[in-house]
């Protein structure tokens, strides 16, 4: 693997309201592939994403994206403009705005609806049919699964260098999760770099090329996904579960 990583975290510490959450995170996210970020609740996965996004400031260490060092002068909008899209755990869908308005907002290059890239929209409608059906509906009225689709579609409405996605399958029915996995597989085909936080190991196994496992604010294991998927003992040790039990 000789391609340089697109995103690198080196010795990142983050404090939130006096609590020391990240204790020196070292992470390298290779370009063009999907990296899974796994770990128990409270391991620091969400905090890591938020730190990259600049929503929480790193108290020590460095975050580098495509050769650019993201330091304290970078605000969240600046980081987003480097080409990073963020799909938070709560999806961040604007409930009072329509689906169309949500999408337009995410398309920084389009001032009005007719400037949206129609080909790209068609592609997205193919992946997420519900979006087209509920195009003029207020986003708050969508079901949980549909909101998640919208959130991810928003991150894809324009080409982005890196997608940060936080637990997309959380709280969704298995059939919806299947749709989600298919949509994300499509995304993979475009060779977009993705850092995906997940608790659902099935999803992780289906999509991940690489995996990093966090515990207590540190990365405790990293390597190819395949290796971990084949090693039940490793899964048991790191995630406290076996593949069969958690699906």
């Amino acid at each position: 693997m000789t391609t340089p990583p697109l995103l690198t975290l080196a010795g990142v510490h983050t404090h939130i309201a006096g609590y020391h959450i990240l204790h020196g995170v070292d992470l390298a996210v290779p370009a063009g592939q999907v990296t899974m970020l796994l770990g128990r609740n409270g391991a620091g996965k969400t905090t890591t994403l938020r730190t990259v996004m600049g929503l929480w400031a790193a108290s020590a260490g460095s975050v580098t994206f495509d050769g650019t060092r993201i330091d304290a002068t970078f605000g969240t909008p600046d980081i987003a403009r480097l080409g990073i899209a963020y799909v938070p755990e709560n999806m961040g869908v604007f409930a009072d705005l329509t689906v169309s308005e949500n999408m337009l907002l995410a398309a920084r290059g389009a001032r009005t609806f007719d400037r949206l890239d129609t080909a790209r929209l068609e592609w997205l409608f193919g992946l997420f049919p519900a979006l087209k059906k509920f195009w003029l509906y207020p986003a708050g009225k969508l079901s949980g699964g549909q909101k998640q689709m919208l959130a991810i579609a928003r991150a894809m409405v324009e080409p982005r260098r890196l997608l940060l996605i936080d637990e997309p399958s959380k709280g969704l029915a298995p059939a919806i999760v299947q749709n989600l996995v298919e949509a994300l597989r499509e995304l993979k085909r475009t060779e977009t770099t993705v850092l995906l936080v997940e608790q659902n190991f099935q999803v992780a196994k289906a999509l991940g090329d690489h995996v990093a496992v966090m515990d207590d604010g540190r990365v405790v294991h990293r390597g190819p996904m395949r290796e971990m998927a084949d090693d039940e003992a490793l899964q048991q040790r790191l995630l406290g579960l076996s593949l069969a039990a958690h699906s």
Partner: protein
Amino acid sequence: MSEAVSEVVSEPAIATASASSGDATATHAIPRTRFDALPLLLVAVLALAAWPLVGSSSTWLTLTAAGLAMGMIVFIAASGLTLVFGLMDVLNFGHSLFIALGAYVTASVFAALATWTSMPSIALNLGAIGVAVLASMALAGAVGLGFERVIVRPVYGQHLKQILVTLGGAIVGEELIKAVWGPQQIALPPPEALRGSVLIGEVVVDKLRLVSVAIGVVVLVALVWTLNRTKIGLLIRAGVQDREMVESLGYRIRRLFVGVFAAGSALAGLGGSLWGMNQQIVVPQIGAQVNVLIFIVIIMGGLGSTVGCLVGALLVGLMTNYVGFLAPKLTMFSSIGLMVAVLLWRPRGLYPVTSR
């Protein structure tokens, strides 16, 4: 915001009938958004409830017209404040300063353009009003910019300090107004051709009030159009709901906020100008007088909601006029009572902004 004023297309430009994968139920119509009209009905309900109490139809019509006009003016003055709070969680207790500035600038402009206002020519009178209104907005907006920079910015996120500091700013500002214009009250008589009233059917309407309402409607339409049909308006509406997400989408919302703050101050100036003209007298406390009403209005309407602000303002305007006729001592209490009743029904206001 200088893009071509192209109509924002509300349907996707893609053929909706094209076969897209897997969606078997695309045959029925796309569901549309349903507007929550219940609070608007409240305005009608209040008006109708007051009819039998007032007695005579013509008085009722006059009061209703006056109430709606007052509501319009309060809405204009309040709209800026609710957006500023909704967007950036900033509580500006100094809003009254911009209102007062608007009123005082109007007085000065009228004095300077006395030749225009004393002529019985509607064109010249309207011209004077136009200049006064624009000058008020300009000065209030400019002071707003300074206010945001110097007073508000250092205390972002700290509500208690915001309350205190903006109050302090208001005190200092009011004293400056007294220093510049003097502490005594200034009369603001309407221009010559706009004195008195007209009779529309059975309704007696002040000419000046008609002009105020006309201006108000123009502002309302402009505001609604900006919020609903432009990308900046979209940003503001989204930012009110979830500021963090808007930043994550790559928009520098702080810059937007400064603009909104200045615009809100300008609107407050306009509101003050209209208020002063309708009261026909300007005192240093004019800002504080309107401010209490504004607070009631934006709480009732839902902090951050423009429609809520409008409905709340109309309700307060109507209530004040009806109660002012029936039991003048209870006007303020009636507005508060209305607010409490609304909050008991909908604790976060008539049109609560989701995810707040």
